[in-house]
C-alpha cells in the first residue's frame, strides 16, 4: 500500500492537500506548519478517531486536539494504491462528538465502493496490522520513537521466527495463567490460604468443642459429687437440727417447770402474807412499831394504875355529918342554952359546908381519873390493867407473824424472779442455738456447709447450662468434621490445580524463552545492521529483550551499554534502527504499508542524519517512506 494524495480539514489544516510519490518522500517544513498534524491525519484516515478517549492532564484526545481550527467539521480524503487498485478513502463527521465516523472507500475517480472496507477495519485491512501494531512499528511519531511491546506485536514478532500461526501471545497467556494462579494463592490471599484459614478455624472450633465437651464431662462429675455432698449434708443437718430442738425443748421445759413452781410458791406466800397483814391490821393496836407499842403500853398501864387509885380516893361525908350533928346540937343548945350557942351552930354549919364542898371536889377528881382510866383501857380493849399486857402480847404475836410472812413472800418473789431470769436467759440461748443460719452450733455450721454446697451445685448447674448453650451455638461437631473433610478435599484439588498451573507457567516460560532465543538475535541483527549504517560502523550490536528493553554495543566494546547510558542522539538512532527492523520483520511482506516518520532525526548530527536518510532511501526501495522534517535539506 502507498499513499498518493491527502486532503484534510483537520486541526490547523483547512482543506490543505499534499501529494506523495513512491519511494522516500521528505516533507520539509518549518515548525508549526502541520507536519505532525499530517501524521495524525494519516492514522485517523486509516483507523478512524477513537471518540471514547477522554482529556486528562497532559493529554488531549485526538477528537479535541485535531478539531479543525476553522470550526468546520473534521474530514478528509486519502488516495491510496493498495493491491494494485487506486482507492479513495473519505472520512467525514456527522457530529463533533463522533468525528470521522462516516467512511467511504471507492475506486478513485468513480463511485464504485471497494468491498470489505469499513470505518472500523479499513486500517487493519489496508496495512495488514492493527492500529496498535501500526503505532508501534511503521508509524513513528515525534517523541515516541522508543519501542514498546504489545501482545499483538509480540505475536507478530514471535511468528517471524516460528513457522506456525500467530494467534498466541506469551505475555497474555502468562498473565492469564498467573491470574488463575493468584486466584488460588498469592501471598496470603487466594482460595488456598482462604481454605487453610477456614480449615484451621474449623479445627480450632472443633478443638474448642472437644475441650468444651470434656469440660462439661468434668462439670457433670463435679455436679454429681456436689449433689451427693448436698444429700449427705441435708440428712446431717436434719438430724443435727432435730437433736438440737429436742435438747432445747427438754431444757426449756425443765426451766419452765421450775419457774412455774417458784411462781406458785410466791403466790401462795403472797396470800398468806396478805392474810397476816390483814390480821395485824384488824388487831386493836394495828400495824405499829412493837417497841413503841410496848413502851406506850407500859406507860398506859402505870397511868391506869394511878388513875384507878385516884378514882378510889373519894370524899368522906363523916365530917359533914359531924358538923351537921354539931350544928344541930348547937342549935338545940342555943335554943336551949344560950343563943350564943347559935354562933357555934353557925360555925358548925360553915364547917359543914366547907367539908361538903371539899368532899364534892374530891369526888369529881376521882370521877375524872376513873374516866381517863376507862379510856386508856378501852384503847387496849382491856378490862383491867392486867389485860393490857395480854393485848400487847397478842399484837406482838401478830406482828411477828406478819413480818415473817412478808419476808417469806419477798424471798419467794426473789426466787421466782431468779427463775424467770434464768428461764429468759435459757430461752434466749436456746433461740440463738436454734438460729441455724447464724449460730455457731454444729447444726448451724452444717447448715452453712449445706448452703454453700447447694450454691456450688447451682453454680455448676449454671456453668453446665452455659457450656451447653455455648456448645450448641458452636454447631454440630459432626457437621464441622464433614465440612473440614470436604474443605480438605477441595484444598487438595485446588492445590493440584495450583501445581498444574505453576507447571504450565514454568513450561510456557521455557517455551517462550526458546522462541525468544530465536527472535531476539534476528531482530537485533537487523537493527544492528541499520545502526551500523547510521553510525558509520560505530555500533555494531543491538540486544533486544522481550520487554523491548534495548542495549547497544559499540564496535570493539565487550559490554553492551544500557539505553540510559547512551546520548540522546544515539538513543534515538538506536530506537529508529530497531523500529525499522521491526517494520522489516513484523509487518506483512505483501503490499508493504508505508513507513511514516515524524521528525525522528532532530537529535542527529548532520553526518548521522545523512546516513539515516541514506538508509531510509534504501528502505524506500521496498516500501514508501514518508518523512516529515523541519530540517531544510
Amino acid at each position, binding site marked *: 500500500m502507498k499513499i498518493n494524495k491527502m486532503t484534510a480539514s483537520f486541526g490547523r489544516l483547512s482543506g490543505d492537500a499534499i501529494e506523495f510519490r513512491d519511494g522516500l518522500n521528505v516533507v520539509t517544513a518549518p515548525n508549526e506548519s502541520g507536519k505532525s498534524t499530517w501524521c495524525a491525519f494519516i492514522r485517523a484516515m486509516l483507523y478512524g478517531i477513537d471518540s471514547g478517549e477522554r482529556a486528562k492532564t497532559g493529554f488531549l484526545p485526538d477528537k479535541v486536539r485535531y478539531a479543525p481550527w476553522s470550526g468546520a467539521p473534521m474530514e478528509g480524503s486519502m488516495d491510496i494504491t493498495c493491491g494494485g487498485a487506486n482507492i479513495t478513502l473519505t472520512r467525514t463527521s456527522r457530529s463533533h462528538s463522533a468525528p470521522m465516523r462516516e467512511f467511504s472507500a471507492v475506486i478513485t475517480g468513480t463511485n464504485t465502493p471497494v468491498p470489505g472496507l469499513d470505518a472500523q477495519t479499513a486500517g487493519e485491512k489496508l496495512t495488514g496490522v492493527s492500529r496498535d501494531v501500526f503505532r508501534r512499528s511503521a508509524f513513528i511519531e515525534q517523541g515516541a520513537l522508543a519501542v514498546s511491546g504489545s501482545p499483538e506485536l509480540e505475536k507478530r514478532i514471535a511468528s517471524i521466527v516460528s*513457522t506456525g500461526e500467530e494467534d*498466541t501471545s506469551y505475555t497474555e497467556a502468562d498473565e492469564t495463567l498467573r491470574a488463575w494462579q493468584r486466584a488460588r494463592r498469592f501471598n496470603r490471599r487466594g482460595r488456598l490460604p482462604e481454605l487453610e484459614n477456614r480449615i484451621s478455624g474449623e479445627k480450632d472450633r472443633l478443638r474448642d468443642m472437644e475441650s468444651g*465437651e470434656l469440660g462439661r464431662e468434668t462439670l457433670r462429675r463435679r455436679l454429681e459429687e456436689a449433689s451427693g455432698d448436698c444429700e449427705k449434708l441435708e440428712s446431717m443437718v436434719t438430724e443435727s437440727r432435730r437433736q438440737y430442738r429436742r435438747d432445747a425443748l427438754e431444757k426449756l421445759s425443765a426451766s419452765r417447770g421450775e419457774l412455774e413452781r417458784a411462781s406458785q410458791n410466791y403466790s401462795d406466800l403472797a396470800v398468806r402474807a396478805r392474810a397476816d397483814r390483814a390480821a395485824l391490821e384488824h388487831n386493836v393496836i394495828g400495824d405499829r412499831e412493837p417497841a413503841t407499842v410496848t413502851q406506850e403500853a407500859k406507860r398506859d398501864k402505870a397511868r391506869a394504875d394511878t388513875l384507878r387509885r385516884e378514882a378510889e380516893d373519894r370524899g368522906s361525908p363523916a365530917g359533914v355529918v359531924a358538923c351537921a350533928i354539931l350544928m344541930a346540937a348547937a342549935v338545940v343548945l342555943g335554943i336551949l342554952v344560950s343563943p350564943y350557942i347559935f354562933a357555934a351552930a353557925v360555925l358548925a354549919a360553915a364547917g359543914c359546908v366547907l367539908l361538903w364542898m371539899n368532899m364534892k371536889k374530891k369526888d369529881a377528881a376521882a370521877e375524872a381519873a376513873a374516866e381517863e382510866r376507862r379510856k386508856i383501857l378501852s384503847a387496849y380493849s382491856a378490862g383491867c390493867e392486867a389485860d393490857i399486857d395480854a393485848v400487847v402480847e397478842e399484837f406482838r404475836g401478830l406482828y411477828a407473824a406478819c413480818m415473817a410472812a412478808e419476808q417469806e413472800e419477798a424471798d419467794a418473789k426473789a426466787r421466782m424472779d431468779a427463775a424467770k431470769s434464768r428461764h429468759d436467759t435459757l430461752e434466749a440461748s436456746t433461740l440463738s442455738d436454734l438460729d441455724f443460719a447464724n449460730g455457731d452450733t454444729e447444726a448451724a455450721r452444717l447448715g452453712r456447709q449445706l448452703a454453700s454446697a447447694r450454691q456450688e451445685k447451682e453454680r455448676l448447674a449454671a456453668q453446665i447450662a452455659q457450656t451447653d448453650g455455648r*456448645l450448641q451455638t458452636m454447631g454440630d461437631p*459432626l*457437621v464441622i468434621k464433614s465440612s473440614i473433610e470436604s474443605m480438605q478435599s477441595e484444598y487438595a*484439588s485446588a492445590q493440584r*490445580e495450583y501445581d498444574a498451573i505453576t507447571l*504450565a507457567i514454568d513450561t510456557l516460560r*521455557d517455551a517462550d524463552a526458546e522462541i525468544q532465543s530465536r527472535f531476539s538475535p534476528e531482530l537485533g541483527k537487523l537493527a544492528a545492521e541499520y545502526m551500523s549504517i547510521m553510525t558509520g560502523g560505530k555500533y555494531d550490536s543491538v540486544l533486544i529483550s522481550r520487554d523491548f528493553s534495548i542495549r547497544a554495543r559499540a564496535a570493539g566494546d565487550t559490554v553492551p551499554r544500557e539505553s540510559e547510558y547512551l546520548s540522546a542522539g544515539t538513543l534515538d538512532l538506536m530506537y529508529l534502527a530497531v523500529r525499522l527492523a521491526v517494520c522489516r520483520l513484523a509487518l506483512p511482506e505483501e503490499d508493504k504499508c508505508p513507513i511514516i516518520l515524524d521528525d525522528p532525526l532532530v537529535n542527529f548530527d548532520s553526518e548521522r542524519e545523512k546516513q539515516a536518510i541514506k538508509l531510509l532511501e534504501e528502505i524506500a526501495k521496498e516500501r514508501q517512506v514518508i518523512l516529515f522534517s523541519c530540517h531544510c535539506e
Partner: protein
Amino acid sequence: MSGIKILHAADLHLDSPFEGLPDAKAAQRRAEQRQLLMRIAQTANSEHVKLALFSGDLLDTGSAYMETGESLIGALGSIDAPVFIAPGNHDWYSPRSPYARLKWPENVTIFSHPHIECAALPDEKLRVWGAGFTDSSCPGLLEGFEAEKEPETIDIMCVHGEVGVRESAYDPITEDEIARSGMDYIALGHVHKTSGLRRAGDTYYAWPGCPEGRGFDETGDKYVYIVDVGDGKCSLRPVSVAQRRYEILREDMSDGGELAEKLPEGTENDIYRLILTGETDAAPDVPALRRALEGRFFALEIRDATRLRRDVWERAGEDTLRGLFLKKLKAAFDAAETDEDRELVMSAARWGLAALDNREEARSDENK
C-alpha cells in the same frame, strides 16, 4: 429347644464425618443418623427379636459427642429386648469411653473385658457370650475358648474381630476357633462389607457390614441382619435400614454425548461420585455439569479424570509457542513415573492451552 430371632448390626461408626457433603447436607445427614438408629430399633421391635447385638465400632471415636450418646441411648433403650454391645477397635472400652461415662438403659449390656464372658439370660435358655476391645488393637479373643455345652441352651457370641486374617491386629479369629467355640451363632463386626451367612463346624457366623455408607469407600446397599438360630439351624436375612447410598460411577466423555442422559434414574436420595473419563479436547466444565445435574442426587461429587485427546499432543510438533509448550510437557509426561505426575502434566497442558486460547477458567468454582 426352639430357635430365637436376633438383630445383628455392626460398624455404625457414629460421629465419623460424612464424606462428600457440604455443610447443610452434612447437617441433614446428622439428623438422619438419629433416624437410622431409630429405624434399627424399630426393625428390632417389629421383628420381635429376642436379642439385639452390636458387634463393635458403634462409635467412630472414644470421644462421642453428647448428642450422639443421647441418640444412641434413646434408640437402644427403646428396643424391647436385651441389647449387647461388644466394643471394637474404634470405640474400645475405657473408663473415659462413653460406654463407661454415660448412663445406659437397663436393657443394655456392654462387654467391657478383653476376654470372653457369659451373660446368662436363664429364662430364655439362652446364653450370650462376648468380649470388648480395651485398646485400639486386640489379640485373638477366641484363642483357646470353648464353651461347655448345656442341653436345651442356645449360645450366642457378640464380638468385634476379623476372620481369617492371621496377622490382623483386630482380634484375629480362625475358622477352627469358631468351630471349637461351641457357639450356635457368632455375631461379628469389623469388616464393612457384608459377609453373608458362614459356617465353621456347627457354628454359624456372619458380619453385616455397616448399616449405612458414610463415604465412597462404603458404596452400595447396606444392611443389618435378622438372624434365626436354633436347633442346629440358622438362617439370615439382610434388612435395609439405610436412607442414603454412596455410589461411584465412571462415565466416558470421549463421545461428547449428553452426560445427563447416561446417568441412572432414581438417584435423588443417593450420594454419587461421578468420575469423568475418556479423552476430550478441553477439560469438562464441571460447574456447569454440576448445575445441570442438580436435584438428581442428594449430593454429587464430580471428578475429572479425562485425558487430553491424543491429537492435542500432536500439535506438539508445531513450531509455535503452543507447540513448544506442548512439546516440553509431552517430554515431561513421557518421563513421568507415577500416574499422579502424569495427571499433573496433563492438567498443566490443559491450563496452558486454556490460557493460550483465551478460554475462561472452567474449574474456578468447583466445590464451592
